Structure formats: structure tokens, C-alpha cells
């Protein structure tokens, strides 16, 4: 039935639109070992992963550190601001 199809399409669009990311940006103040420490203690990243993400921030200017629903990403960004890191919320590139 066309009506059902439309509804399904609508729902799929909504699902795709709800994927968001947490981005941490490079800044000249926060120490590299501090950023790595925050990634490990807050996100539970392994030492290697935390180091990788930290270097991404340092060398490429930014790193996506989490993906998920908008509310969860906003909680992460709030936590990152608590640690003094520059963090933003954005829609994920689907």
C-alpha cells in the first residue's frame, strides 16, 4: 500500500537524520597528554585509540570521538567543555 511505503520512507529519513557526532577540535592550550588522558578516562578508549584520536586532533585539527543520537552527543560535548576541550555537535555525514 502506498501509504505504508511513504510512512516507511519517512521513518527511514528520520532515523538517518538522528545520527550525530561529537567533534573535538585542536586548540593551542590543552596539553597532548591531557587530551589523551581525557579520552581514556571519559570515553574509556584504550591507550592506543586515545593516542590516535589525540594525534588526529593535533595534526588534522579535529577528530570525531563519538557517534549517536543528538542528546547523547550533547552530553559528551558538555562533558568535554567541563574538561576544557573545544568540542562541538554536528550531523553525521551519512
Amino acid at each position, binding site marked *: 500500500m502506498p501509504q505504508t511505503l511513504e510512512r516507511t520512507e519517512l521513518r527511514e529519513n528520520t532515523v538517518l537524520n538522528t545520527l550525530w557526532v561529537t567533534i573535538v577540535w*585542536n586548540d*593551542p*592550550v*590543552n*596539553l597532548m*597528554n*591531557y587530551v589523551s*588522558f581525557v579520552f581514556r578516562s571519559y570515553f574509556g578508549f584504550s591507550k592506543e585509540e586515545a593516542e590516535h584520536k589525540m594525534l588526529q586532533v593535533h595534526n588534522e585539527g579535529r577528530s570525531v570521538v563519538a557517534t549517536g543520537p543528538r542528546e547523547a552527543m*550533547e552530553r559528551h*560535548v*558538555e562533558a568535554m*567543555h*567541563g*574538561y*576544557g576541550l*573545544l*568540542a*562541538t*555537535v*554536528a550531523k553525521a555525514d551519512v
Partner: protein
Amino acid sequence: MRAFTVEDDGTVSAVLAIDEVAILVDLTGQISDLLQENPQDDDALRRLLPDAYPDDRAASAEFRRFTAPGLLDRKSATASVILSTLSNSNAARAESGLGAEAPTIVRLDPQQAQSWLTALGDLRLVIAARLGIVKDGDEGEPGAVMTEVYDWLGYVQGSLVEAMDQA
């Protein structure tokens, strides 16, 4: 200063000269005032509460409206941990009968260490904003007292991270 090192019981400790304690108390007091005054147009405060949605002013304002009170409260709380632990350390030093110029031993449990870590970071962010350190390579005015304090705070925070890593 003797950098932070980890002890057998999981605490971390450092030895601070009396002048270094005075600097930390003074700066932390200033940041506590700034957090309580909460001036909206202050560069340093903007850096402590950055835009969550750089391309969307309304969404950033909304995010700040919901998160700023809690963030400022928590930042004030971590700053006050620096003041209370230094005050305890000073009291312990006085009781030990050492002279007024004797260095202060600061010993922090894991929770206090976490507070010091973030509060030192906030201090550095505020000073960096005052020094105009906004992009990689900016170093503040060479030789200026505040630049030296900023670098020293980086040394203190860096040594604390290293010690906590080993705890």
C-alpha cells in the same frame, strides 16, 4: 617545585615553594570570582563555555542556556578543591614546625587529583585568552610574568597527568 609523583597508596604528591602556593591561591581565587560574576562578553569565559554548534547561533545559545549553570558550578567546585587542599597542606606544614619559608607538600587522592587536573586546565585557558594565545604557535609575550606563569602551570598540569597515568 618538585613535580608530581605517584605514591604507593595511589595518591600523587608534589612539593611547592611558598611563592608557588601563593600564585596558585591568587589565580584560583581570581578564576572563582570570574566564574561567579559570569560576564557574558568575557573572552576567557567564552573559551570556558564554547559554542557547541559553531554554524548555528540559536542552537549554541540554547545549548549554553541548558549547560552553562552546571558547568560553571562544577568549574567553581574544582577550583575550590585547589584552595582547600593547599590550605590543608599549609596547615600541615605549620604544624610540622618547619619555618615559614619551608616548601609545602601537596598530596592528592584520585578525586582531588582529577579536580586539580581540570582546574589547572581552566586556569591555563583563562590566562591563554588574556595572553591572546588562540592558535598553534602563539606563545604570549616572551619574558612577561604571565607568560612564565602560564608555562609553569603547563608544567604542573603535565606532571600531574603523568603521575595519574602511573597511579
